[in-house]
């Protein structure tokens, strides 16, 4: 093993939006700050024209190989956890592939336990994050509409960009929403001004959808940032302590050479997502931390939770408007059922399936269909689907751990024990009935409905924030309880997963952590 003589002020483990945002804050305060940022995965080229053409033609993206491989991780319980395709293990993290839907959590989301007796409260409130949400929306360039009723508490903080308006294909569902008492809204999306609406958002050729890669590229290329070092192919093995309170080093492996390195720093920030943040703490055992750093109360890895996915699909015999899905994101959504009165039975966030209605014209031509046949299909039967994220509540018995073996990036494999809340089927069925009412109002025939198991896309809570170490792993400033200089900055710290996507909130708390560290420095 080699030990570098260089001592950093900060070591970051993970290079996703959290790490990039905190590092950016530190370097804006002092460009000479010495930072080492490690990532287990590779760097994938962004905005590559050949990659983009191959994506358009074949659907394959240049980062597909960084996903978890089916079967390498495991679940035990009454669901099959959805690992595949849910996280990008590469420079820039999961914002390399995210859909960029950006909703703030609502005030009641921070008081779930107080309001319902279930789940947990955050040790901070919505008001503690309000200004950071505003900054995060500027930073991510969120396009939205503050006129919707669920935005009443933040109407004084407009979105930086106007919303993407509804499309004609949304119309029939918009009108049905209104008739059944659902307020239609416009999906807040992180898109820069240079968006060319290619609909190839998963690999944008113009860099119009935020990716942490762009932030890191700027940080690396800024000549003032003489102390900023970023290394890929560098999975962290273990955090090393010299006392119970003080982490002094991280060991990591250079997977290209096989060499193990030990690097010292003043402060360590684990921003490795919900899976890897918990697993790193768990394997960082010592005489001071028998069960892993921050794990004296056996809470690291527990409460793992993510959205369940509800869906109702309907069909109509004709498509006289020849609608197809024109964007690669939904424009129609609703937070009517993402409200305090629905917290106990499970909030849902509704959105129209971004892929439907769809006709793959190219596929029909490849199959040898004639012009007349294709015209008939374009005006023929169509399907629409209404989907929802259902807020599940983290349960003590549901936990994430490592299993023997490592993946091809040197990260330990993942195991999740998970039993669903037994009240879920009844509660989810009620929510599906609300969704089916929309299709009945539309005059569509319902062809399928149901729910999918939760998975990694929006997983949270494995190192949750709390008021005290008996209730969680990190404090309100994301510092691991019992330590002086170790922070976790990832979805792992969220006490709840709410009903909406986590990345805007993650960006906000990253900015807040950045300010906290600057104040301490």
């Amino acid at each position, binding site marked *: 093993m080699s030990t570098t003589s260089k001592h950093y002020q900060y070591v970051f483990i993970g290079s996703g939006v959290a790490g990039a945002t905190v590092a950016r804050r530190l370097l804006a305060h002092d460009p000479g700050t010495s930072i080492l940022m490690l990532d287990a995965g590779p760097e994938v080229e962004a905005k590559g*024209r*050949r990659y983009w*053409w191959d994506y*358009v*033609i074949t659907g394959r993206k240049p980062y597909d190989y960084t996903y978890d491989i089916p079967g390498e991780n495991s679940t035990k319980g009454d669901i099959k956890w959805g690992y595949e395709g849910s996280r990008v293990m590469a420079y820039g993290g999961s914002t390399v592939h995210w859909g960029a839907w950006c909703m703030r959590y609502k005030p009641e989301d921070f008081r779930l336990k107080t309001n319902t007796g279930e789940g947990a409260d955050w040790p901070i409130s919505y008001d503690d994050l309000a200004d950071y949400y505003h900054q995060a929306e500027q930073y991510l360039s969120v396009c939205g509409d503050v006129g919707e009723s669920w935005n009443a508490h933040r109407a004084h903080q407009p979105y930086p960009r106007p919303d*993407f*308006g*509804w*499309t*004609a*294909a*949304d*119309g*029939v569902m*918009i*009108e049905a929403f209104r008739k059944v008492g659902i307020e239609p809204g416009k999906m807040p999306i992180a*898109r820069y*001004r*240079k*968006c*060319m*609406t*290619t*609909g*190839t958002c998963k690999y944008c050729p113009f860099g119009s959808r935020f990716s942490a890669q762009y932030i890191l590229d700027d940080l690396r290329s800024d000549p003032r940032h003489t102390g900023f070092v970023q290394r890929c192919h560098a999975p962290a093995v273990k955090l090393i302590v010299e006392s119970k309170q003080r982490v002094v080093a991280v060991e990591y492996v250079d997977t290209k050479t096989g060499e193990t390195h030990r690097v010292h720093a003043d402060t360590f920030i684990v921003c490795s997502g919900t899976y890897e943040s918990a697993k790193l703490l768990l394997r960082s055992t010592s005489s001071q931390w028998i069960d892993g750093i921050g794990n004296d109360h056996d809470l690291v890895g527990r409460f793992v939770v993510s959205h369940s996915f509800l869906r109702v699909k309907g069909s*109509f*015999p*004709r498509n*006289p*408007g*020849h*609608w*197809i*899905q*024109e*964007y*690669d994101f939904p424009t129609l959504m609703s937070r009517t059922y993402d409200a305090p009165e629905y917290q106990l039975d499970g909030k849902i966030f509704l959105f129209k399936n971004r892929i439907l209605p769809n006709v793959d*014209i*190219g596929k029909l*031509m*490849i*199959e*040898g269909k*004639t*012009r007349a046949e*294709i*015209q008939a299909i*374009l*005006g023929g039967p169509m399907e629409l689907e209404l989907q929802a994220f259902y807020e599940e509540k983290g349960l003590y018995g549901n936990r994430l751990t490592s299993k023997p073996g490592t993946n091809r990036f040197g990260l330990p494999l993942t195991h999740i024990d998970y039993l669903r809340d037994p009240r879920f089927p009844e509660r989810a069925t009620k929510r599906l009935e609300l969704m089916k009412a929309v299709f009945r109002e*539309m*005059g569509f025939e319902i062809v399928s409905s149901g729910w999918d198991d939760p998975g990694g896309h929006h997983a949270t809570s494995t190192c949750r924030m709390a008021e005290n170490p008996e209730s969680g792993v990190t404090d309100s400033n994301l510092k691991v309880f019992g330590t002086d200089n170790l922070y976790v900055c990832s979805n792992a710290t969220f006490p709840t997963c709410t009903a909406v996507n986590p990345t805007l909130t993650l960006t906000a708390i990253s900015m807040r952590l950045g300010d906290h560290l600057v104040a301490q420095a």
Partner: protein
Amino acid sequence: MSTDTMIGGPICHGQVDATLLDHEDHTLTAAQREALWEIFVEIGRCWGNFDDDSASVHSSWSELIEAKTQQPPSYVGEYANAVAVVQELVQMYGREEAYRQLFLHNGIPAGPPVTRLAHAKRYVVDEFIRVQIVAGGFQGFVTPSPANYNGYVGGSRYNRLPRVVPYVPGTDPLREEKP
């Protein structure tokens, strides 16, 4: 897909690996580029979805060819093969019928492409079709047509022209259609 006997002659029926074909040259000749452009134009003629013989998308097509031949994995071998395949088909059937059969009734069996004809269809014709559609061909089938399509570069959303067919309250074409 048709179960007709596979079209073509000895070149088309030549057996090859399913992986990308290699080529001793690393660039296309001008004649090969012209022949490939003809394949692309004939797609628009076959399906009648471009008014100007695809002239307006020549630059997009050229960018594709550049990317496919100058960056790995190279398609020079596939493009050279496709030119030879089409040449044989034209000699056997005449130009119009050659393309009609290639696009609509080629008789290629399902599965990995293991003949020169199958390679030409999979790696050139099929890919050109996808490019033609996203370059604007999707708008040439029906009226009203979609304004946008995944892969279509619609221009900055701050242009005055709408990039999608927008929602207009009270204009739901399904209203008269509901059973």
